[in-house]
């Protein structure tokens, strides 16, 4: 390397120039993301009312939090939501993607339609589905009656689905305490899957098409049947994609808010609080009259911790199995 080259290289490391390039985005990120997020998290150690700091309380809010039944129930509701959305969305989208990968004519058509909800606003989606779920005039109840069933209350049904099923089947032995997620929450889950599936399908499809042909050729020469081909070739080679879809769907599901805000209630989170997910709970605490932002921040920090842990755990578990 000549000294001139070295100089040029050194210049590449110039932090001042880098800063210039970073300033436009950096200033905005710092002022409108880092600052608010940082202060939101710091506030969890303060007593805040009407958005004003009343004093430092250390970990007191966290202590209170763990004794707050609504916190636990909203955490439980969120868990139901995540467990309802993630595996089903993953399974259905992978299933559809594998089907679409079978040399389907007019692939474009299917893909276009499946993807349609992704570009549709949540506000409109929520309005339309609320109308479909309407207990008296809704399309879904019409289908149920058409199929010989009875009407359901959907978004207004606070009963747990297991409880409803047990009652429907006359299972008197079903334990009272295990009612399961409310039908209202299931309705919200259905919409979430409906809206998000197209995105996952497209990503899976891209993943499938990235698998080089020679692997299939090899499997063919070995005389593998389609099922074996899927489990021995497609599934392992698709694992980075699956991992990505799993991770992103999980994170997005933990953060569910707008859909709950628009579809449930009044009051939001109803009926009987059975759709009050954690993000809505912290929004309500921090933003409704009283403005208890410290408490809301404590909830937020715990949520952040959960998401982070899950991400890391998923990464750990999956990394060993993923074939990059």
């Amino acid at each position, binding site marked *: 390397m000549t000294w001139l080259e070295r100089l040029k290289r050194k210049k*590449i490391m110039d932090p001042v120039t880098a800063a210039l390039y970073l300033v436009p*985005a950096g200033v905005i990120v710092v002022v409108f993301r880092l600052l608010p997020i940082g202060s939101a998290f710091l506030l969890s150690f303060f007593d805040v009312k009407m958005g004003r700091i009343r004093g430092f309380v250390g970990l007191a809010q966290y202590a209170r939090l763990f004794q707050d039944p609504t916190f636990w129930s909203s955490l439980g509701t969120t868990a139901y939501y995540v467990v309802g959305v993630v595996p089903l969305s993953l399974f259905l989208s992978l*299933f559809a993607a594998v089907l679409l990968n079978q040399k389907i004519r007019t692939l474009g058509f299917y893909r276009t339609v499946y*993807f349609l909800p992704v570009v549709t606003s949540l506000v*409109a989606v929520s309005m339309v589905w609320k109308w479909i779920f309407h207990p008296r*005039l809704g399309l879904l109840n019409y289908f149920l009656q058409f199929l010989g069933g009875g009407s359901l209350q959907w978004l207004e049904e606070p009963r747990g689905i297991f409880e409803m099923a047990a009652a429907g089947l006359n299972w008197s032995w079903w334990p009272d305490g295990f009612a399961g997620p409310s039908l209202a929450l299931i309705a919200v889950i259905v919409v979430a899957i409906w809206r998000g599936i197209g995105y996952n399908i497209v990503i899976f499809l891209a993943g499938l098409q990235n698998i080089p042909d020679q692997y299939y050729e090899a499997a063919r020469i070995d005389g593998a049947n389609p099922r074996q081909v899927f489990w021995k070739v497609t599934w392992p080679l698709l694992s980075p994609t699956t991992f990505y879809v799993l991770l992103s769907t999980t994170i997005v599901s933990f953060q569910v808010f707008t859909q709950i805000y628009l579809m449930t209630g009044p009051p939001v989170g109803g009926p009987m609080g059975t759709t009050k997910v954690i993000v809505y709970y912290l929004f309500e605490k921090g933003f409704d009259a009283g403005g208890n*932002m410290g408490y809301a921040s404590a909830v937020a920090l715990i949520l952040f911790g959960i*998401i982070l842990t899950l991400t890391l755990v998923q990464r750990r578990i999956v990394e060993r199995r993923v074939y990059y």
Partner: protein
Amino acid sequence: MSKGTPRHDIEINAGYRARRTLGRVGVYAALWVGIIIMIVPFFWMLSTSLKSPIEILQFPPTWIPTGHFAQAEDGGSIEVYVISKDRTAGTAVVRPVDGGPELTVLSSEVIDRARLRFSNYVDAWNEAPFARYYFNTIFVTLFVVAGVLVTSSLAAYAFARMKFWGRDNIFVVFLSMMMVPQPVYIVPSYIVLVKLGWIDTYQALIIPWLAHIFSIFLLRQHFKTIPNDLYDAAIIDGCSRFAFLWRIMLPLSKAVLVAVVIFTIVGTWNSFLWPLVMTNTPEVRPLQVGLARFSQEQGTSHELMMAAAAFSIAPLIVAYFFAQKQIIQSLATSGMKS
């Protein structure tokens, strides 16, 4: 697309073929069930948006909006609402849609025929300042897209090509902020905007969104794939850093830039909570917030709500149909890259 398609056509025995044909049918059947589930809500939105307020209350509902017409005195037919039907007497009480007293007619004289009430769209449009909402959304979206392109390219270039203290740490901090849901920091953000005097202004909707972390990430990943040698050679040839970005990097990243444009448009057009909190008046209120308020105020006029929902999503849907390949690819590549 055929590149990765599994080929199962080596076994040539008849049983396998039959199975395969059956399998094909199954594949198409499954895909069509999916198609119907995806399409029905949209169809239902359009169907409802073209119905009369009376027809909305009908259960079982009609798939195609249907009007009721009764024989008029002059021999023509007039459109009516059916108030009630008396099955034993075979009569119906109807009220003309255009006003006038209630009439009792023979049930058999009431004819149903398709009647698409496009006036619902006009009514919904006039019920709230939707034209203004539309303008606001388009205006904001344009600025955000332009801004994101500039800031993301510059920042991604710095992250991808320059070495500076704490580069990777800063980048990780950027990325981790994507994991924080908006409701967590919406109140502190509000306070920041108040301090800037931006509440209820376009600035509040544009400037905080001019930097988009995910776009930076995406571009950085792409920039990293451009060989270092190219860069070193260009620099040694006296090409300035900015010129390299402008003349070489960006033209090589067209696909990613298109992706950035597309998801910025979709994200901005559909954003809800932020504008809900940061705007107060119709002058700056964007479409989605206006739509949500409209649906709260209408309460039970489902036909107007569905009409408003339809015209609010129309521009993106239309754009989507014209550029669906591009859009899907953009959003998919954005997923794959991470």
